[in-house]
């Protein structure tokens, strides 16, 4: 039992990202409204960004700039937060924003054509064609 508690609480960042991911996938599958699906997709992407950010963090770490080390001469890697995952996520945020932008543009095009954003109504309109 105590093993389970340690597994859940000790690695809470992984549990959180998986819960967020499942919320996102649920919204993408279950919601009928295209914008709600898009929000679900965004939650899904954000969960992965949070996963990356959390793996770079450590308690009591400092920022990786030389001047912050006492006396300027010792560089102790163990004290620094690894900046690389955070930098990678800047790029991933750009990707997710541009995906959202393209998706909204497509949703706008769909709305102009069908006058609705409910997926079932759009499919009803497309079927007779």
């Amino acid at each position, binding site marked *: 039992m105590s093993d389970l508690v340690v597994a859940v609480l000790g690695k809470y960042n992984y549990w959180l990202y998986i819960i967020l991911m499942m919320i996102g996938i649920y919204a993408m599958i279950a919601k009928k409204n295209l914008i709600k699906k898009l929000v679900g*997709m965004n939650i899904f992407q954000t969960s*992965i960004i949070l996963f990356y950010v959390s793996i770079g963090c450590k308690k009591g770490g400092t920022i990786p700039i030389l001047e912050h080390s006492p006396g300027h001469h010792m560089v102790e890697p163990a004290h620094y937060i690894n900046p690389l995952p955070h930098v990678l996520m800047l*790029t991933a945020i750009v*990707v997710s924003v541009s*995906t959202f932008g393209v998706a909204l543009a497509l949703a706008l095009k*769909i709305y102009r054509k069908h006058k609705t954003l409910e997926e079932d109504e759009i499919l009803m309109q*497309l079927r007779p064609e």
Partner: protein
Amino acid sequence: MNHHYPVLIVTLPLLFAFVVSGTAWVKKSLCFPLTVAGMGLSAWFSICLLGQVATTGPVEYRLGGWAMPWGIGYRVDTLNGMVIAVVTVLAFINLIATRKTVVQETPDKTGAFYSLYLLFVVGLTGILVTGDLFNLYVLLEVASLTSYALIGMGNGRAPMSALNYLFLGTLGGCFYLLGVGYLYIMTGSLNMADVATLLPPLFKSSAIVMAFIFCMAGVSIKMAFFPLHMWLPNAYGNAPTAAGSLIAPLMTKVMVYVLIRLMLTIFSVDFVFVILKMGPPMVWMSSLAIAAGAVFALAQKNLKRMLCYIIVSEIGYMMGGAWLGNNAGMTGAVLHIFNDAIMTLCLFLCAGSIYYRTQGLEMERLKGLFRKMPVTMACFVAGALSIIGVPPTCGFFSKWYLISGGLAAGQYAFVAALIFSSLVNAILFFRVIEISYYGDFETHNAHGSSGAAVMESPASMLVPLIIVSTGLVVVGLYTGGIVNHLIHPIVLKAGFSG
């Protein structure tokens, strides 16, 4: 100049994409020549690069001069050199061939269309040359985002199918990113060669197994591997002609390349086939993909949708060949990437040429087309024979390698699926040929399209089409050279014995 080829292939189309989107505001008629210049240079440099790689061995390029494990590096060996050459050359041919259809279908958006076209090529070539796992993710999303936009430019159902493709494609990209994250936690590196040297002691770790499974799942969604193929027929079938014939032959093949790169270079053959033992189940899945694609293709009434389901089936060929886990199977898979890109382009260009005149690709509209469009239909027959696998064309040779790989591995279900799909392809294409050869053209005038205007397509479409269909035979005849000089060094180096 010589050692800058890898970066020029990617950055030239990028530069021209910006120039084209700027020029579109000033003078629309300049967009096409500028795109041709950008694509042509990129294609020329990729051929030079392939020659260089084939003679002097793998080429490495350090962006900004940073040494490899720290900076982003490009690394080109014969495997990706070959795929880059075929991607850029086919994109160039498709660009020339589809000029008229772009004007016909998206008349006021040519500037946007051509800059997206170039950006899509940037994404694909970037995926191919890069030696960095995260860089691959970013360029994967560049290629995907531009393909969503290109598909969404179509009319009718196109925006809806593009949005569905976007949902699934984003899921695929995110799974790949998650897999890269797990790899990074375990190894602390993103450089492919570096990760490959750090991984062997960690093979027993479950995090590495999960990383592999996430990467596989992501790439399988992007390549439309059978149970995950739902987005493909709608997206490619409803895309504008020029976008469809650009994306359909290239995107899925590049994804198969990513899979083979992951299997051979990053997670070695030992891990995939000996430790995980994923070979046999994946070959079964691929056999299912081949059979399902063929059966769905039989049910289609529209030529382009039929071709889309044939792509689903062909993805099964390449996945199955790669997962057979022997020399012949892997050779067949790599050779089929090369051949299938050419065959699919040939068939999509024929479909585009027919659509340009008839404005529809339903089977009954094809009646009597052999008399009206003899050259297009002759090229269609060449492409069809290659997909079926008739000897002088290139499709036969890769299928031969796949079947002999299947026999060597004892995977008789895969061999049976290959033969079944060849037979179904023969039925599919002879049905089309029968309709268009023996069908009476006059009856089709009653459908309301301008029957009198249906005639052979302009020379600007026919010449590239003829080049591609002769290419099918030429590549078939030079198969021995391609296999011995380009594919075998890679397959042997990865640890498959001859």
